[in-house]
């Protein structure tokens, strides 16, 4: 049951991801990405990472993508128009890069996971609840946590500055 759901979600995410990348209209891309993120959240749930799952919805879908949508609407970004004439030469270079990368990457992941499969599976403990994540955050990872909050402050100030500045 769970695994079937997982694969369904996975297919959805991949489809939505391709939709995002291949679509010409930015608004559709945003909507597609939101859909992908919702499905990813569902996958997190299936992997018993409830807190992260809900954060995924809250932060990615609820905040980040709204920002994207907002910007797309604010700038009134028009759909890409296919450029007439020959495709830029660089594109071939990128395509080659991408192909090689995909090949190497997938082989590596395959290799790596093959090795992982041989190692014993860990105990399925209660990892998804807020308490355990919170405890890790506020003890072991306190300093990174504080730095992250500082980073957020910096970003806040920087963003306001960037967006307000009249160049």
């Amino acid at each position, binding site marked *: 049951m*769970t*695994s079937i759901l*997982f*694969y369904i979600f*996975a297919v959805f*995410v*991949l489809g939505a*991801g*391709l939709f*995002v*990348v291949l679509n010409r209209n*930015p608004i559709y*891309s945003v909507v597609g*990405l939101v859909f992908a993120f919702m499905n990813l959240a569902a*996958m*997190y749930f*299936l*992997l*018993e*990472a409830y807190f*992260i799952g809900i954060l*995924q919805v809250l*932060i*990615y879908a609820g905040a*980040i993508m709204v*920002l*994207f949508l907002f*910007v797309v609407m604010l*700038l009134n*970004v028009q759909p*890409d128009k296919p450029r007439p004439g020959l495709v*830029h030469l660089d*594109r071939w270079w990128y*395509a080659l*890069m*991408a192909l090689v*990368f*995909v090949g190497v*990457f*997938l082989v590596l*992941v395959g290799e790596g*996971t093959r090795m992982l*499969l041989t190692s014993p599976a*860990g*105990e*399925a*403990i209660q*990892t*998804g609840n807020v308490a355990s*994540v919170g*405890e*890790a*955050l506020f003890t072991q990872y306190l300093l990174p946590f504080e730095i*992250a909050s500082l*980073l957020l402050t*910096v*970003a806040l100030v*920087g963003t306001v500055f960037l*967006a307000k500045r009249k*160049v």
Partner: protein
Amino acid sequence: MVVPIYHVLIFAALLFVIGVIGVLFRRSAIIVFMSIEIMLNAVNLAFIAFSRYHGNVNGQVFVFFIMTLAAVEVAVGLAIIISLFRNLQTSDITEIHMMKH
């Protein structure tokens, strides 16, 4: 675990590749940005999978930080895009090359 970690990781890799393709081939800065988000999410998924696999919470903590970073990155990045758009009236990254040479 019902779903083998192998599958999750392959899936994460595929998602990552989709993001890479988006970064490399799209001209709209916003879509490139979204592709980067896809890549980050692929990584997140891998982290979650490992966290589940090893039965400890560290992976999730990492995801937490990645999400924070993503939020920061998006805020600043979009501000930059807005700023660029204001000046150049375009969000096509192939047209944004003021710093060339």
